[in-house]
């Protein structure tokens, strides 16, 4: 179980893997997530499902190296096995009845936005995609997005590729031209989702965001992933991960996301040192 069937570097810090997990592959849907452990002493980390192949029994994950665990994961190769891989967890993204949707992806969040855009396209929805990155060398999944989009915008913060600016720029322009959407689905860094919600608010467009807070079990047990939605406490793992972005307290979520910043940096450094030793 949990063998790595495919590994592909999408950019210097983002990697795609197909993992053999037939039970998960059979049920996974866009918007759901898995929790994995790399090895016996490993921590449990949540990753959103980036794709699945029900026949092959594989689930695609795309991750950015941010801490010790993702560093360890990135050093696993095709044929290696992961210790644990549990899912699908959380509720799938609701797409029923949507006719015209703007999907906004930021950075590694594009990996999660893509299956949503694909699902919308498959049901005959008109899809506008806006994907944004810091710079050209970090761009991922451009062709894949184009293939499922009626309208496509590529944005980079520094203008090194596509248009210069953040993802709200084309969104605001479209609103200015009088365009409207049944729904905007934004998946990316918290600050990006916060600003997308601010951009859509005056137009009253329903805006769905996918929250990816710190989690342990992913089944509702630890309460670590709690967030305030419309002033009420919600657990991202069982009540989400999708929420009405206009009701999410992003400032609180951003603060909570930084609970272990220092620990993560140290863990990653430790993992890097470990691998330097191994290759020497």
């Amino acid at each position, binding site marked *: 179980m949990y063998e790595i069937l495919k590994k592909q570097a999408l950019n210097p810090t983002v990697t795609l893997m197909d993992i053999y997990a037939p039970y998960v592959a059979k049920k996974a849907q866009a918007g759901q997530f898995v929790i994995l452990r790399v090895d016996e002493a490993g921590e449990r980390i949540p990753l959103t499902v980036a794709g699945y192949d029900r026949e092959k029994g594989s689930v695609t994950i795309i991750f950015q190296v941010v801490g010790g665990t993702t560093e360890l994961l990135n050093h696993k190769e095709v044929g290696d096995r992961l210790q*644990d891989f549990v899912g699908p967890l959380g509720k799938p993204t609701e797409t029923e009845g949507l006719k015209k949707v703007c999907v906004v992806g930021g950075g590694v969040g594009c990996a999660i936005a893509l299956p949503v855009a694909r699902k919308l396209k498959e049901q005959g929805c008109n899809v506008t995609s806006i994907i944004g990155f810091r710079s050209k060398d970090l761009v991922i999944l451009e062709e894949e997005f184009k293939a499922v989009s009626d309208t496509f915008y590529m944005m980079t913060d520094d203008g090194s590729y596509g248009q210069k600016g953040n993802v709200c720029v084309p969104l605001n322009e479209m609103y200015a031209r009088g365009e409207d959407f049944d729904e905007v689905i934004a998946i990316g860094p918290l600050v990006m989702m916060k600003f997308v919600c601010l951009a859509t608010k005056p137009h009253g467009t329903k805006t769905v965001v996918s929250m990816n807070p710190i989690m342990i*079990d992913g*089944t509702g047990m*630890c309460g670590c992933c709690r967030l305030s939605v419309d002033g009420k*406490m919600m657990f991202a793992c069982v009540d989400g991960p999708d929420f009405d972005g206009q009701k999410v307290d992003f400032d609180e979520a*951003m603060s909570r996301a930084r609970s272990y910043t220092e620990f993560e940096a140290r863990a990653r450094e430790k993992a890097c040192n470990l691998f330097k030793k191994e290759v020497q």
Partner: protein
Amino acid sequence: MAFNMRPDKNPMPCQAPDVRSRNFEEVALGYTAEMAIDEAKRCIHCKNKPCVAGCPVNVHIPEFIAEVANGDFEAAYRVIAQSSSLPAVCGRVCPQETQCEGKCTRGIKNEPVGIGRLERFVADYHNEHCKEAPAAVPSNGHKVAVVGSGPAGLTCAGDLAKLGYDVTVYEALHVAGGVLVYGIPEFRLPKAIVQKEVDGLKALGVKIETNMVIGRVLSIRELKEEYGYEAVFLGSGAGLPRFMNIPGENLKGVFSANEFLTRSNLMKAYLPDSETPIQRSKVVAVVGGGNVAMDAARTARRLGAEVHIIYRRSEAELPARAEEVEHAKEEGIVFNMLTNPVEILPTAVEDVRDERYGWAAGIRCIRMELGEPDASGRRKPVPVAGSEFDIPLDCVIMAMGTSPNPLLKHTTEGLETDKHGCIVADERGATSVDGVFAGGDAVTGAATVIKAMGAGKVAAAAIDEYIKNKAKA
């Protein structure tokens, strides 16, 4: 045989408080054979055996104690094993003072017989000396699925396997054991003991599938219709943590006891080489007075903190086992009774980019006094106006109990639950869905290991009967 009329129990040898509050090794070290025999002779074998009625699974207590007094510890084990599947666990975590020992005739005038300590001694003796794995029973060809590998599920699985059923246990986490693994700390229940129980089940032929969240990866209907299980037992526990709905609960440094304990126990964050982080705090407040609160407090203490228990009723109402309260006090934990939190106070940093922003820095509490008895029969705590005070701290752990996970309710058509989200089951564990049984905290809400075990036992018998009747029809 001459009875030992010594008035008090043989004391339990323990690690010294100042030593154990700095390590995670088991606190209570267990009786020696001499102590066990001496303690067993304190049982006067009274006619009514009130202890047996006090035990949720009716262990034949005087009979096993008689074997201990005779020095035949394996015979004592065989007596216990007739009724209990997890004696090494129950001897450690049962609230004996409200069960067997609470009813003991010796306890009327003096201390009761140390039944829990004797049970633990017998189970540990057996685990240490008996090397024979239990033999698998020939299969009867019937398949049963068990959802959850906590005390209810393990007991149900064990009993069914002994009857020849082909049993598969589905566990959501990466290891089996449920609350015995993620909730109860190593210093109270060493994980090797739980592993031994799980290994025993595997030797009986029980299959354990970890990483399987039933309700998501497979539905109950699929288990029955596609995977061929003739009956399903739901022992999914009460895992959802409760919070108080007071301001500041989402600050960093505020944890549910489940999260804090899961990080430490399941993810081994107390070990220096764990990859899972845990907050090392200076001052911790644990809100609640149950066993989980004591476990969280004593874990935080061992991680180096000054720890305060905050409980709204008085010490007499503390729901935790007496021994845990006593141990916690010895370890230097401060008990703030008749105290209730009203707000968790943040650090005085307003710049959101500052790393110190958004952390808990204190807890505002109000003094309580006991008023008229409430629905639970206990005197209801009421706030004393104007008595607010603050405790400066850097960590708050909420241990106010748990509710059943709504996942199975949401994904199982026709499964009836009550207003608290607990699965509705009759006294034999049958639910509103044909062939689906339930027991343990998923039915009762958060309770005890032994009650869950009892429910697992009852349901196993009911499942056996259900499948036999169906085969006849």
